[in-house]
C-alpha cells in the first residue's frame, strides 16, 4: 500500500507545486501561466478521481490506507495528520472539479494574471488542507490560512466595492475562528483524561459530557458552552442566520471564479466542520441544540428565499439562494437521522455543482453585458428576451436553474427529498414550513428567469454573442453532473453511506 498512501499528500501539495511553478514563469507570459494552471488543476482533479476509485465504500470512518500521520510539534502532540472518509471525499472531488473549471472560466482575467493564478492555486491547496486535516490544530491553521488568498482574490480582482467586501469577509471569518481557537485549546486541556491531543478522532465520542466549568460563579456545561463556540465559528462560514451578512457582499464583489469557489466549496467547509468536529466531539450538546439548529436552518431557508426575491442584482439573488439552500443542509444535519444527514451531505455536493453553474452562467453573461441588473435602479429592465438572443446560454441556464430549484430528475431534488424524509419524523412543523421555502425558491428563480429571458429583446441585448466553445466546454461537466446525479445519485451516496451511518449511530448513543 506504500504507493497509494502518499496520495493525500500529492493532492494536498499538487496545487502548491503549481504555485511554485507559476513563480518561475515570467510575468509577461500570461498564456503560459494559464496553461500551467490548467495542467496543474487537471492533474489534481485526476488525482482526486484516483482517490475516488481506490476508495473502499464499505469502511465506516477513516480510510486507513490513505492515512498520513507525521509528528509536527511533539510537545503539544500536534500531528500533521491527513485522512479521508466518506464525508470528506465528495467535497474533495468537488474541490478538484470546481477549481479546474474555474481556471477555464478565469481565462479572461486580464489584471495581474500571475498573482491571480498563484493565489488561486494556493487557495486550492488550503481548501484541500481543511478537508484532509485530521488534527484540529492543522485544521485550524488551514482554515485560517485560507483567508489570506481569499482576501486578496476578492480585494484585488473584485467589483467596485471589493475592499469593503474583502475586509468584511475576512473579519467575520476571523472572529468565528478565534472563538474556535479558544474552544480548541480548551478541548486540549479539558480532556483531563489523558487525551491531551488535538487529534479529531481521539476527541470524538462525547468524552466531555460530564465536565462543567464556572465563570463568575455561574456553572456551565463544558460541552454546551464550547459547542456554541465551535458552532458560531462554523456557522459564520455556512453562513447561518444571523451570521450571514458578509455573504452577499463577498459574493457580489468577488470575481466569477471566486464566487464559484466561495459558494461551491467554502460554504461547505462550515457544514463539514459541523460533521467532522462539532457533532462528533460534543454529541450530547448536539442533541441538546438540535432543535435550535433546525429552527436556524428553517430561518435560513425562508429568510434567504425572501431576500433573494427582493434582489434586483442577479448575482445577489443567487447569493441569497445559497443562504436558502445551505439552510436545507442545516435542516438535514439537525435531523440526526441517517437519511437526513445523507441528504445533507448530498445537498452539500449538489449545491456545489448547481450554484457553481449559476455563478458561472452569470459570469458569462456579465462578460457580455458588464452589468447584472435584473431591474436597473431607475426602473428600466436590465435584460430582456435573452432566450431568443442566446439560445445555447439559455438552455444551460435553464438546467442550472432547475437543478438549483430542485426539480425532479435533477440533482437538487434528491438531496432535498432525502432531507425532508429525514427531518419529518422529528420536526413536522419545520418540515411543512421548509416546504414553503421550496416554493419560494421556485418563485424567485422563475420570476428572475421570466424577466431576463422572456419578453421584448431590449436594445442592449442584441449585441450579445452566444457562449463560445470554451465556455460551453467548462459548463458541460457540471451539466452532466446535475443530470446524472439527479437520476442516479448512488456514486455519491454509496461513498458517504458508511461514514454517515457511523456518525449517526455514534450520535444515537446520547
Amino acid at each position: 500500500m506504500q504507493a497509494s498512501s502518499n496520495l493525500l499528500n500529492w493532492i494536498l501539495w499538487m496545487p502548491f507545486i503549481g504555485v511554485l511553478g507559476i513563480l518561475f514563469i515570467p510575468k509577461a507570459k500570461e498564456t503560459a501561466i494559464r496553461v500551467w494552471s490548467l495542467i496543474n488543476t487537471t492533474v489534481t482533479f485526476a488525482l482526486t478521481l484516483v482517490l475516488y476509485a481506490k476508495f473502499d465504500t464499505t469502511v465506516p470512518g477513516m480510510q486507513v490506507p490513505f492515512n498520513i500521520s507525521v509528528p509536527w510539534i511533539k510537545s503539544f502532540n500536534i500531528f500533521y495528520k491527513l485522512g479521508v472518509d466518506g464525508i470528506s471525499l465528495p467535497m474533495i472531488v468537488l474541490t478538484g472539479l470546481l477549481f479546474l473549471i474555474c481556471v477555464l472560466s478565469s481565462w479572461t482575467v486580464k489584471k495581474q494574471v500571475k498573482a491571480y493564478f498563484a493565489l488561486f492555486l494556493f487557495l486550492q491547496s488550503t481548501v484541500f488542507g481543511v478537508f484532509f486535516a485530521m488534527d484540529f490544530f492543522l485544521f485550524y491553521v488551514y482554515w485560517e490560512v485560507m483567508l489570506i488568498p481569499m482576501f486578496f482574490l476578492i480585494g484585488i480582482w473584485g467589483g467596485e466595492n471589493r475592499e469593503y467586501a474583502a475586509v468584511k469577509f475576512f473579519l467575520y471569518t476571523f472572529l468565528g475562528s478565534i472563538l474556535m481557537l479558544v474552544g480548541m485549546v480548551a478541548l486540549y486541556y479539558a480532556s483531563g483524561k489523558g487525551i491531551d491531543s488535538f487529534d479529531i478522532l481521539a476527541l470524538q465520542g462525547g468524552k466531555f459530557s460530564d465536565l462543567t466549568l464556572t465563570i463568575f460563579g455561574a456553572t456551565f456545561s463544558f460541552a454546551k458552552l464550547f459547542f456554541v463556540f465551535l458552532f458560531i465559528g462554523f456557522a459564520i462560514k455556512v453562513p447561518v442566520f444571523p451570521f450571514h451578512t458578509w455573504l452577499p457582499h463577498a459574493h457580489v464583489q468577488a470575481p466569477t471564479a471566486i464566487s464559484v469557489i466561495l459558494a461551491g466549496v467554502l460554504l461547505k467547509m462550515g457544514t463539514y466542520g459541523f460533521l467532522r468536529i462539532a457533532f462528533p466531539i460534543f454529541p450530547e450538546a448536539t442533541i441538546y441544540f438540535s432543535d435550535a439548529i433546525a429552527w436556524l436552518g428553517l430561518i435560513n431557508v425562508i429568510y434567504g428565499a425572501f431576500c433573494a426575491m427582493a434582489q434586483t442584482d442577479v448575482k445577489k439573488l443567487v447569493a441569497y439562494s445559497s443562504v436558502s439552500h445551505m439552510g436545507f443542509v442545516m435542516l438535514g444535519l439537525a435531523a440526526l437521522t441517517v437519511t437526513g444527514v445523507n441528504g445533507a451531505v448530498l445537498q452539500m455536493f449538489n449545491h456545489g455543482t448547481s450554484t457553481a453553474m449559476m455563478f458561472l452562467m452569470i459570469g458569462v453573461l456579465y462578460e457580455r453585458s458588464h452589468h447584472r441588473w435584473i431591474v436597473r435602479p431607475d426602473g428600466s429592465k436590465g435584460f430582456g428576451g435573452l432566450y431568443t438572443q442566446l439560445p445555447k446560454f439559455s438552455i444551460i441556464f435553464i438546467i442550472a436553474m432547475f437543478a438549483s430549484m430542485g426539480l425532479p430528475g435533477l440533482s437538487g431534488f434528491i438531496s432535498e427529498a432525502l432531507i425532508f424524509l429525514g427531518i419529518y419524523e422529528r420536526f413536522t412543523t419545520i418540515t411543512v414550513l421548509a416546504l414553503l421555502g421550496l416554493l419560494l425558491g421556485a418563485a424567485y428563480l422563475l420570476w428572475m428567469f421570466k424577466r431576463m429571458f422572456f419578453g421584448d429583446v431590449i436594445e442592449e441585448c442584441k449585441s450579445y454573442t452566444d457562449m463560445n466553445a470554451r465556455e460551453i466546454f467548462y459548463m458541460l461537466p457540471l451539466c452532466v453532473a446535475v443530470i446524472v446525479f439527479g437520476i442516479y445519485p448512488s456514486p455519491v451516496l454509496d461513498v458517504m453511506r458508511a461514514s454517515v451511518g457511523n456518525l449517526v449511530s455514534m450520535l444515537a448513543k446520547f
Partner: protein
Amino acid sequence: MGLNYLASLSHFVPELLACVTMFGLILIEATYKEEHKERGLFFFAAYIGFASVLTFLCLNLKHEAVAIFTNSAVIDPFSTLLKIVMVLGTMGATYLVSQSKDIEGNLRPEFTIMATGVLVGGMLLSSANNMLLLYIGIETLSILSYVLASLKKSDDRSSEAGLKYSLYGGISAGIMLFGMSHIFGVLGTINFTEIGVALQELTTVQVAILLPSFLLFLAGLGYKIACVPFHMWSPDVYEGSPIPVTTFFSVVPKVAGLAALIRITTVFFSHEGAMNMGWVGILSVIAALTMTVGNISAIGQRSVKRMLAYSSISHAGVMLLGILVISEVGIRSVVFYAITYLFMNLVAFYIVSFVNDKYGNDHFERFNGLIYRYPVMSIMMAITMFSLAGLPPFSGFVAKFHIFNAIVIKKYYVLAIIAGLNSVISMYYYMKIIRLMVLKPAESEEQISGFSLLNQGIIVSLTVPVLFLGIFWEKIMLVATNAKIFLE
C-alpha cells in the same frame, strides 16, 4: 549561596561588556571631527560590542542560575534569554539609526551611546533580585530614555515627548519608591527571595498594608511596560520620538519591565493566599484593559507609527496574560512572545521608517500601492501585519496560541475570550495597511531610497524568523522552556 565579589563578577561579564561598549563608544565619538558625517568605525565598534555581549549571554544561557553580589542580582537562563532579546533589539535600532534620515549627524552616535546605557539598565532590571537594584535598573533605564525621547532638540514634538516622559516617569518612580518603603517597613527586607518567603505567612493587618503598597509598586512597573491605566505617556512619546527611538522603546524597556514583573510575580506570589489572589485579580483587570484600550485607540490613528505604538500597548496586555497565570507555561509563552514580537516589530518599524524618510510623514496613505513598486517589501510587511494580528502560519499566531494555552489551563475563559476578540479588532487595523498597500493604486512611481538592496535583504532576513517560527517553533520553545527563573 552567596558568591564572593570576584566570583560574582565572572557571571556579570555581559553587563560589564555593555558598559565597556558604552564608554568605548563615547571615546570613539570624541575623536570624530564635526565635519565627519559617516561614522563607519563608530558603528563598527558598536556592533562588535553588541556581538561580544551576545556571545557571552549565549554562553551564560547554559549555566545554572546563580545569585550574585550577596543575592542582590540573579543570573538565570530566564533573564539571560530576555537580555539576548534586548541586545538584539538594541542592535536592530542601532542599524535603523545608521540608515534613517529621521536622525542625522551627531545624533546618531548619541543615540547609540544612550541606547547602550538603556540596555545596561534593562539588563540590571531583568536580573534584579532586590528592591534597590530594581529601582536602580528602572532609573538607569528611564533617565536615559527621557533623553532619547527628546533627542531631536530642535523639534517641538520630540521635546514634548521627552518632557512628558520624564514627568510621568518621575511621578511613577516616586510612587513606586513609596510602595517599596512600605513593603520594607512591613517585611523588614528588600531581598526578593526573602520577601517571597515572608509573604507566605502574613497577619491580616500586614495584608491590609501590603496590598495597597504592592499596588503602588505595580504602578512603577506598569508605567515601564505601558499598561493601562499607566499608559498615557506612551503614544505621545512614541509619536514624538524619532522612529528609530520608537523602535527601541517598543522593545527594550518593555521587555525589561516585563522581565522584572515576571520575576516579582513568580517569586512573590507563587503561593496561594490573599496576596496571590489580589495580585492576580489586579493583573487580570489591567491585562484586559490594556489589550482593549490599546486596540480600540489604535483603530482611529492616522499615523502608522502611532498605530504601532497603541498596538504595542495591547501586545503588552497579551503578555500580561502570560504573566498572571504564574506558571512555567505562562513564562515560556511570554518569553516566546517577546522573541517573536522583537522580529515583527523590527520589520514593521524598518519599513515604516524608510517610508517616513521618503515622504516626511508616515500616514497610512503613504503606503498606497506599495506592492506595485516594492513587491518584496510589501509582502514582508503583509506577513508581519498578519503575524502581529495572530494569523497562522506566522509566529505571532504561535505566540498567541501559547498565551491562550497558558490561560486556558488555569480556566480563565473570560480572559481568553477578551484576548480573542481583541485579536479580531487588531486584525482590522493591521489589515488596513495591507489593504492600502495591495488594493490601492500607487500614488507615485518614485523610488524610496531607504529600500536599498542591502536594507531589503536585512528586512527579508528579519522576516524569516517570523515565518519560520510560525511553523517550526519547537526548538525555540525548548529554549524558552529551559529559561527557568531562579527560585530559592
